[in-house]
C-alpha cells in the first residue's frame, strides 16, 4: 500500500501533505544529487541524457567529493511533470558509472546554496545604495574601484535572484553564478 501511495518517495518527515500525484500535468522543479564515478566522460553522459531526451537543466554543478573513492557529486536542478522527473531519475540510474540518484526535493528537507559574483558599476548615491543593500543581503565586497564593486553572495537561488534584481537599476554589469549545491538536512 505504501508503495502505491508513494509515501516513501513523496512525503517528508514533517508532513504527509508533500504526497504528490505521480501523473499530474503540473511542472515541478526538483533538485537531484547524483553520485558518480569520477571518470572521463561521465558528465558528458549525464548532459547527453538531458539533451538527447529533451529534459531541462536549470542548473548543474559538479566536483569531486571523495578523492580516494573517485566519486563526484553532480547537483542538477530540473523541471518537469512528476512523470518526467521520475523518468529522469530512472534514466540517470541506469547510466553505468552512476552510483546513486537522490531527489532532494521529495526525500525530505534539504539546504540549497549557490554562490554568485555580481559586478555593479555605479557612482554617487547609487554606490551608497548598492553597499547598503549588500549589507542587508550579507554580500561581501571582493573587488572595488572608484566606479564599480564586485559582490560575493551566497544563498538559495531566489535570494541571489532578488539581490541581482535590486542591483539592476543601480548599474548591474555582470553576473557569474556557480549553480546549486544541495544536501539533505539531518544526520543521514
Amino acid at each position, binding site marked *: 500500500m505504501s*508503495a502505491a501511495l508513494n509515501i516513501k518517495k513523496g512525503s517528508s518527515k514533517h508532513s504527509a501533505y508533500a504526497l504528490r500525484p*505521480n*501523473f499530474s500535468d503540473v511542472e515541478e522543479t526538483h533538485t537531484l544529487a547524483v553520485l558518480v*564515478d569520477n571518470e*572521463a*566522460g561521465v558528465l*558528458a*553522459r549525464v548532459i*547527453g541524457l538531458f539533451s*538527447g531526451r529533451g529534459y531541462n537543466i536549470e542548473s548543474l554543478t559538479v566536483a569531486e567529493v571523495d578523492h580516494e573513492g573517485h566519486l563526484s557529486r553532480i547537483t542538477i536542478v530540473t523541471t518537469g511533470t512528476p*512523470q518526467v522527473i*521520475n*523518468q529522469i531519475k*530512472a*534514466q540517470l*540510474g*541506469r*547510466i*553505468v*558509472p552512476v*552510483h546513486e540518484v537522490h531527489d532532494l526535493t521529495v526525500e525530505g528537507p534539504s539546504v540549497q546554496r549557490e554562490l554568485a559574483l555580481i559586478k555593479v558599476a555605479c557612482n554617487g548615491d547609487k554606490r551608497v545604495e548598492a553597499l547598503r543593500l549588500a549589507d542587508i543581503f550579507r554580500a561581501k565586497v571582493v573587488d572595488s574601484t572608484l566606479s564599480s564593486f564586485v559582490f560575493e553572495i551566497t544563498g538559495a537561488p531566489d535570494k541571489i535572484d532578488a539581490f541581482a534584481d535590486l542591483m539592476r537599476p543601480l548599474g548591474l554589469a555582470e553576473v557569474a553564478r556557480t549553480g546549486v549545491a544541495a544536501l539533505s538536512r539531518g544526520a543521514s
Partner: protein
Amino acid sequence: MTRQMTGAKMVVQALKDQGVEVVFGYPGGAVLPIYDEIFQQNDIKHILVRHEQGAVHAAEGYARSTGKPGVVLVTSGPGATNAVTGLTDALLDSIPLVVLSGQVPTFMIGSDAFQEADTVGITRPCTKHNWLVKDTDRLSGVIHEGFHVATSGRPGPVLIDIPKDVQFASGTYNGPKQARTSHYQPQVKGDLDMINELVDALEKAKRPIFYTGGGVINSGPAASQLLRELVDTTGFPITSTLMGLGAYPASGKGWLGMLGMHGLYEANMAMHDCDLMINIGARFDDRITGRIDAFSPKSKKAHIDIDPSSINKVIRVDIPIVGDVGHVLEDILKVWKSRGRKTNQEALAKWWNKIEEWKAVRCLSFKQEGSVIKPQYALQRLEELTKGHDRYITTEVGQHQMWAAQYLGFEDPNRWMTSGGLGTMGYGVPASVGVQIAHPESLVINVAGEASWLMNMQEMCTAVQYRAPVKQFILNNERLGMVRQWQQLLHGERYSQSWSEALPDFVKLAEAFGCKGILCSDPKDLDDAIMEMLNYDGPVIFDCLVEKHENCFPMIPSGAPHNEMLLGDVNATNAIGSTGAVLV
C-alpha cells in the same frame, strides 16, 4: 591469473577467458597489433566481413540466436563510425555486444590524426556504456567489465576504444574474476508485494491477456519455459511484440499472434478490450500502443521489466515489477500455485468466445489468383515447406518483415532475428551470416525486400568465404514497399522516390558472388523453386518477383487506437488523419 603481456595479447586472452569463439571484424592500421595476435592462435575464429556495419549486424545475429554476447573488432575512424548504425540497432533491441575499436596512439589523440575520430564521443549515446583505455594495465579489467555490463540487466552493446600504443605496451593481465563488477548489479528479483498483487489480479481477471516482448527471450530459455507454463496453466490468451516471437510457440493454444501496427486483429482487439494486461518484458513501444490516450482504456496494467526506466515511461501502469522476467515468472508461478491455481473460469470462457469471434474475421486471409505471386503466398509456402526444419529466420526491414512476422510461425525462442526498434534496412544479410556461423548445420533464411537487401549485399562474399549456406529469400516488388504504402495512404498516391528504376539481375549477381541464383515469378513454380533453394548446399539468392502494389494489412493507422484497424484496401482511403500524419 596475473601475467605480463602486451595489450594486443591481452585482448585475445581476455576474449578466450570470456569463452568467446567467434569475432566479427575488419582490420585496419589502428588494430594491426591485435590482428597479429589473432593470426598466432587458433582458439578464436575471426570472420572477415566486408563492411563494419555488417560485422555488427552479424554479431547481433550471432548473439540473438545463441544468447551469448556478440564480439566485433574494428579499426579507428571510419571503422568505428561504420559500426554506429549496428550499435544503435543493438541498443534499441537490447542485444549484448562487445565492440572493440582501435584508436590512434594516446599521444596523437586530439590532433586530427589520420583515421582519428572521437569514437567514445560518437558512440556514447548509442552504447550502454563505453570506455577509452589509456593504460595497458587497465585493459583486461575493462574488457571483462565490458562483458559484464553488456550481458547484465537489460543487455546492450558496449564499446572499448583501444589506442595503438596501448596495444603495443606491456602490462599486467587480470582474469575475469578480478574484474570490477560489483558497482553494476541490476535488480533481478521482483518485489514480492507487487507479485502478490499481480497474482491477486490474475485470480480475479475476467478478460486477461499476456503481452510479451523481447525481454522474455533476453532472459534466457528458462524464462520462455516458465512463460509457457504460466500461459498454459492459467489458460489466458497471449500476444507478443515483434521482438518476442517464439517465446511462446505459435502452435500453442493461447497464441493470438503478434500485436501492434501490423499485428493480428484478434490480438489488438483483445489488447483494447482486456481488463488485465500483463506486460512481460515489453516496453509499450509506439508500434504497439497506437494512440496513447485510447490505449486499452479499461484495463489494469502490470509491467514486468528489468529496466526501471521502462516502467511508466509511456503508459501508466498499476502493478510495476522491476526484475528479470525469469525470476519474476518463477515467483508468480510459485505464489499462484500456492494459493490454489485459481482463475475466473467462467469469465475466461466468455472472453475466449469473444476472441474466437475476432479470430473468425480471418484478418490474414488473402486470395492468390492469376499469374503473379502474392508476397503473403510466398511466405505461406515458405512456412509450409520449412516448418519442421531446424530453422532460423532473419529479415530486412519493411513490408516483407511484417508479412514474415504474420505468416511464419515460431515455436522456439532465439529463432527470429529482426531489427525491431531501429528498423535498420540492411540488417538481414549480415545477421543471417552471423546466425549461420553460430549454427552451421541449421537452415538460415533471410526474408528480404530487394531494396533492403541491396544495402548490405556485400556480406554475401563473407557467406561464400566461410561456406555459410544462407538462403536469401527476396520478395522483389521493385518498390520500397512500406514507403510506397504510406505514400498511398497518406500522400495522395504521389510515389516520391519509392520506385527502384534500376535493379540488378539477382541471378547473375548470385553467380558473380559464387552463390546459386533462383528466379521465380509464377505461383505454379514457387514450391519447386523453394525446394530447389532448400536442397542446394550453399548460399542461395532467391529472387521472388511478387505483386508490386500489395499493401501490408491489417494495419493500425498512425494516430488511431487498437480497435480501429484497417483490414484491407477497401477502407484504407483517408485512413490517416492530420494528427496521425506527423507520426512515423
